């Protein structure tokens, strides 16, 4: 068994176990030590991951894909998780189960990593389940608080349904093509074997199951509730990390089917349109900032699906997908970092005049939102730019036009918040969390700007990556 191929994942598991043991024995005031263990585990995993640079092959009998796409996605997952850990100690300071939180967080990250690397349908199912089970826990962490429990409950119900659909879909594909390995499925489909309406149904159900993790239509409804009710570090984690894994998993799944068969790409395009439109329309009149970010994150999943639509039609599709996912992660984490630093304040009214009391937080929020709209010089602009280029290049110009129209609509709600923050009458005092969350906010906001300058490196690196099976 080439155990070294999953060394990064092993180091995450080890860190998760160590964090749990530490939390079980350490006194209450030292629970934050688990965060350090988790960060150390992530650092080691990142180092081990970078050692895999340049690999493009299947391992573990074809169930695990080592390629550029999964490498960069797993790197993004680890960095995003580390960022969420920075937000946590302040938030859970008084929580008696503080230390355990990091274990669940790491296992959630592991689920997302497994999605990105899955090279086999059954492996995909296990990855989605791991990511889901931990996700429910993270969302409902404050078990005495109704909103948090409600978020976890909705997430769970939605997830149970989506996972059932996923398993049904996987069963259909497995039955029709008599293999669950991606390499075999790709070979069969290239020859046009086993094509049938039932296979389309199988793929559609599987895609729905993954769309749940992505927060895309038709399994998106949990996202706004989680964004509103889950503890803010969990909300930041759940709106970003599983999406990164799911994006790669979905891309791999779609790539199995050649563009000329089954009409899978038009289906994804329709999902993209539905997702972005619904997300933006629902966000328009939100007066709860966290719900607003939740809906905007649904809309962003719609944009992301554009890159998956043109996979195999435009040579830049994978690069665009990776750049966009990275830019979305940076923008969304920045927004949640601000919310966390402001102790999770959520009613839109409470953001009136924030700029006069907390100028840095206000600026960071505006930068995050400008990035999510895609206004230069933020990284979000480059994400959208590469996305639009790939989409138009792949022959889906109408989809790019719809996305542009959606971007205009989205500006309405983002700018409404920016307007309140800068033009409103400020409250007496705005409480903030602490030094750690403040520096996390700074780091994130600066990253939004700086990464747009350094984007060339990313484009070159992502451009060299491949998505198995080829």
């Amino acid at each position, binding site marked *: 068994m080439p155990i070294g191929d999953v060394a990064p994942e092993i180091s995450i598991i080890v860190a998760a176990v160590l964090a749990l043991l530490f939390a079980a024995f350490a006194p209450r005031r030292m629970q934050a030590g688990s965060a350090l263990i988790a960060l150390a585990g992530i650092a080691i995993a990142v180092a081990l991951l970078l050692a895999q640079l340049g690999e493009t092959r299947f391992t573990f009998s074809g169930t695990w894909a080592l390629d550029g796409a999964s490498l960069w996605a797993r790197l993004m997952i680890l960095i995003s998780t580390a960022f969420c850990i920075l937000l946590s100690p302040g938030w859970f300071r008084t929580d008696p189960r503080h230390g355990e939180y990091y274990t669940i967080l790491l296992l959630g990250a592991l689920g997302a990593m497994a999605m990105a690397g899955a090279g086999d349908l059954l492996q995909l199912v296990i990855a989605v389940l791991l990511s889901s089970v931990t996700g429910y826990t993270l969302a409902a962490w404050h078990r005495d608080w109704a909103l948090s429990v409600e978020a976890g409950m909705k997430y769970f119900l939605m997830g149970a349904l989506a996972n059932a659909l996923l398993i049904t879909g996987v069963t259909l594909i497995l039955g029709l093509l008599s293999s669950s390995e991606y390499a075999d499925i790709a070979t069969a489909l290239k020859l046009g074997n086993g094509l049938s309406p039932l296979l389309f149904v199988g793929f559609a159900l599987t895609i729905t199951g993954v769309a749940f993790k992505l927060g895309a239509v038709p399994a998106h409804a949990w996202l706004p509730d989680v964004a509103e009710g889950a503890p803010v570090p969990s909300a930041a984690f759940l709106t970003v990390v599983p999406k990164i894994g799911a994006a790669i998993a979905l891309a791999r799944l779609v790539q199995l089917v050649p563009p000329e068969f089954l009409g899978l790409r038009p289906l994804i395009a329709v999902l993209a349109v539905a997702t972005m439109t619904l997300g933006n329309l629902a966000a328009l009149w939100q007066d709860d900032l966290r719900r607003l970010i939740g809906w905007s994150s649904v809309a962003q999943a719609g944009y992301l699906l554009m890159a998956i639509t043109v996979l195999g039609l435009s040579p830049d599709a994978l690069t665009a997908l990776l750049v966009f996912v990275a830019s979305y992660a940076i923008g969304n984490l920045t927004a949640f970092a601000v919310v966390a630093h402001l102790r999770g304040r959520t009613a839109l009214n409470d953001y009136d005049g924030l700029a006069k009391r907390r100028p840095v937080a206000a600026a960071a929020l505006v930068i995050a939102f400008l990035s999510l709209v895609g206004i230069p010089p933020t990284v979000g602009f480059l994400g959208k730019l590469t996305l639009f280029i790939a989409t138009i290049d792949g022959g889906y110009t109408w989809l790019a036009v719809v996305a542009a129209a959606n971007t205009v609509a989205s*500006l309405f709600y983002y700018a409404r918040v920016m307007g309140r923050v800068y033009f409103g009458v400020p409250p007496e005092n705005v409480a903030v969390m602490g030094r750690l969350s403040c520096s996390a906010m700074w780091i994130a906001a600066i990253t939004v700007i700086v990464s747009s300058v350094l984007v060339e490196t990313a484009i070159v690196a992502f451009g060299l990556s491949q998505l198995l099976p080829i």
Partner: protein
Amino acid sequence: MLTLAILIPMLGALALIILPSLSQSNARILAIGASTLSFLMLLIVWARFDTSVDAPAFQAFAEAAWIPSLGVAWRVGVDGMSLALSLMSGVLFIACISWPMENPERPRAYYAWFLFLESVSLGLFLVLDLLIFYVFFDLSLVGMFFLIGRWGHGDAERAALKFFIYTLAGSLAILLAIIGLVLSVDPITFDMRALIAAQPLAGMDLRGGLILLGFLVGFAVKAPLFPVHTWLPPAHVMAPGPVSAILAGVLLKMGTYGIVRIPFQMMRETFADYALPLAIVALASILWGAIVALGQTNLKRRIAYTSVNHMGYTVMGIAAAGALLTGAEGAREMALTGAVVEMVAHGLITGALFLIAGGFWARSETYDLNAFGGLANVAPRLTMAAVIAAFASLGLPGLAGFVAEVQIFVGTFAVFPWIAAIGLLGILITAALFLRLLQQLFFGDLPKDHEGFPDVSLREGTVLAALLALVVLIGIYPRWLLDLIGSATSAIIGG
């Protein structure tokens, strides 16, 4: 040099944000200093600028790599057109920054946003890379959004939002068109010079038409042309005077400049095919702007609608100039030169008019024309400035507007005689509306509550005098400006 001209105001803006304990007057001095320094850089470029026939099209060129894999780089350079426009913008920014704040609240942030806006506006005119052009185009919206929303009055937040959304819709149309354009060259590049030389869409009917439509819609929103001008009046009315002056004087020019630089120059054939519809839209703007302006009783709304009218002249000239691929070179060159002169003249004249309008608000908190009268008796210097600006705007010979309009109309007559003939009506109406405006404000009976109406202060007077002196200078002796602009337009028309 050009990079410095863009960078200096940006650094000034950063300095204003970072230095916490700056008083209002020091903040203003810093802002004036930064904008003057940036203007000096432009003057140096102008002094070295070669207007002879065989000079290179773009001068003072500089380049630095940014995203080579997408063909994007920091490229700056000027021709006569962009140099003239950036010089005008430089002057107008110094003027508007020197003008007293209408609502002296948070001065550091106010001047910082102004410098930011100056940096991106100059950047837009000076860059030769389509993507960075788009970056500056979008950033100008952000700057304007905050300036209107924060320092405006009345329902400023709503006006700012409307402005932001409308113009972002336009700019996204431009972004899609840009992508369509650059994808048709191989390897992909955003270099304007390469795209102008390549004419990548020649012979592509439908695709070229759609891309052209994207550009024209986007720039028409910004210009603005009828029927996508409706964001303009509320934005102007709610904005403080100096911000209105920049909005009308500089930001509107981005639309017309963009039309010339991108669709006109980079896709000649397609542009020529659709020049007639564009000219008709321009005609509609001329008439609509003039007629609606006539019906306004709000001082700022009236001036705002004359902008729609004036930008209509400009676009009509541009459409006439691009209507043919060969033939009538002289007339087309004249129309294009007129259009560019109109951009410069409109910037200075309307800038001055909006500053005057801002003065009215600062003194009486109303723009209602009926509330005033007989001000010539108490404010003779204000009257004098307003009369010159209004006459210049309606196109009186000897002032800058005339130089522009006469060339536009003469040039257009050779290409689209009917449109030019109907367009002349616009000039008549504008003349009527400005004369009525002057009459209502300055002549007749002085209402009781305006007996103590203060005349322009020394600072306001100096700013207005400088702007209007330029207007008169261009009107009487336009040679220097025409040489500069002509060097660009003859190259553009000649291909």
